[in-house]
Structures are given as C-alpha cells and as structure tokens.
C-alpha cells in the first residue's frame, strides 16, 4: 500500500504547488492554467479515494467547462488590468496572516481529534453498482429527488441570469471594433 501513499504525496504536493501558483502568478492566463493543474490533481485524489465517477465529473465540469469559461473571461477582460500592475491589494499581508492562522488552527484541531479513522473499510460490493444506487437515489422520492429537481431549477436560473447579465447592451455602438 505504500505505492498508493507515494502517489498521494506526489499528487498532493503538485496540487498544493499549483494552488499556490494560482494565487501568486501575475499573468492571469498562467494562473488559470495552474488552476487546471490543481483541479486535475484533485481529480486524481478522487480516483485514489475510489470515487471514479466524481473524478471524471471533476474533469468534465471543472477542467473542460469552468476552466475554459475562466480563460474566456480573462481574455474578454484582459484590457482592464495589465500584468505589471500590483496584483495584490494593500492589505495582503493581513490576508496572508489570516490564511496562515486558519491553517494553524485547523492543524491544531486535527491534532485534537484522537485517531479519526486510520483505515477505510473496503467498499461493499452489492448487486447494484454504486452508480446505479446513486442514480436511483437521485430520483427516489424518499431520498434526493428534491435536490435533484432544485438543481435543475438552479441551473436554469444560472443560465438565464448569466445570459441576461453577460449579453451586450442592445446598443452595440460602445462595443465597436470587437471581434
């Protein structure tokens, strides 16, 4: 099992480093690419946690859709802020302190909890695969049908809202020279 631990440490270090690069790179396109690396690292962690479906969903939703959307936005708004301007605000030192304090506090907390669960029980194999159970419980009246339908309404609202907000104003004169 040590092989898995080595993989975990490698992926964890890459994910963390990529996350750090996201917040420190000056070039926003680079930040977005680092974000993609961090997200891919999280997907590998999901595979290690035997949640293959979630890993693929992580790739499909975050890397393929959200990251691309972020890059598109960066390109659309690129003229607003140059890379050589200061990228951090004046109180960044306090923010860094807050983040470090929070991390220290969380570490302290983990230390307080005695021996969470060292060993994960092997996944129980049933007649239905876990995807079937997942699919069934999503539309089961006794389980998650309300979140399921509410999620669709949420997505509908997000789609309509984003289209309304992001559509250029009908007088396209101020947008002249766009491609």
């Amino acid at each position, binding site marked *: 099992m040590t092989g898995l631990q080595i993989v975990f440490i490698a992926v964890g270090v890459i994910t963390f480093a990529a996350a750090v690069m996201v917040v420190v790179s000056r070039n926003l396109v680079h930040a977005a690419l680092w974000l993609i690396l961090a997200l891919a690292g999280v997907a590998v962690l999901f595979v290690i946690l035997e949640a293959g479906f979630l890993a693929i969903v992580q790739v499909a939703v975050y890397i393929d859709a959200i990251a691309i959307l972020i890059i598109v936005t960066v390109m659309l708004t690129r003229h607003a802020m140059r890379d050589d301007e200061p990228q951090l605000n004046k109180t960044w030192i306090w923010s860094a302190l807050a983040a470090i304090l929070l991390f220290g506090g969380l570490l302290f907390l983990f230390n307080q909890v005695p021996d969470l669960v060292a060993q994960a029980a092997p996944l129980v194999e049933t007649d*239905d695969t876990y995807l079937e159970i997942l699919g069934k419980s999503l539309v089961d009246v006794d389980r998650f049908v309300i979140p399921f339908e509410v999620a669709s309404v949420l997505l509908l609202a997000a789609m309509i809202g984003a*289209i309304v907000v992001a559509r250029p104003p009908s007088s396209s004169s101020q947008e002249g020279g766009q491609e």
Partner: protein
Amino acid sequence: MHEPWIFIAFLLPIGFILPAVTILFNRLLAPRRPNKIKDSTYECGIETVGETWVQLKGQYYIFGLIFLIFDIEAVFLFPWAVAYDKLQLYMVLEGVLFILILAGGLLYAWRRGALEWV
C-alpha cells in the same frame, strides 16, 4: 476499485510523452538558425498591426456558459441513465422533467437571440 484506473494512469502520460519525444527528435535533427524575421508573427507577410490581445466578443462566453450548464446536466443524468432499468415510470418522468426544465433554458437563450452567431 483502483485497478481499472491504473491503465489510464499509464496511458495518459504515455500519450503525452510520445509526442514530446517525437518533437524532441525533431529539435535534435532539424537545423536551428533563428533570426528576427523568421521568429516574427506570421500574418501572410504583412507587418503586424496593433497588439496581439485583440478584444474578443462576448458571444464566446455564452457558448461556454451553455456548454457548462449542459455538462452539469449530464453529471446528473448519467447516473439516472445507468440506473434506468431499475427505475419505475415516475422516476423516469422525474428525469424527463429535469431535462425539460433545462430545455426551457435553451428555449430562453434561443428567444433572446443568444444562440445567433453575430
């Protein structure tokens, strides 16, 4: 449970390294005499005008957005489709309702003209 993923964990890096090695070979074999004109931006022989970062139009955002929404929809619907055989009719209809609500969003985008290529 990890087992099916080991092959993918090998194949993806290999798919990345094979072209890398090929390009590396190319770099080793090919001549390298860079000069300023050769390295300049290629625009069919015309001098480059203005900066590279041209303003893109917001339409690209709309397409990305609709793709994102349908991607998430797929995340909910694929488990539903996998469990399809074991669902009762009303459960199937709940999935259909889910699709129809999102189809409403598509219809809205259509009516607003957000799907036109301008």
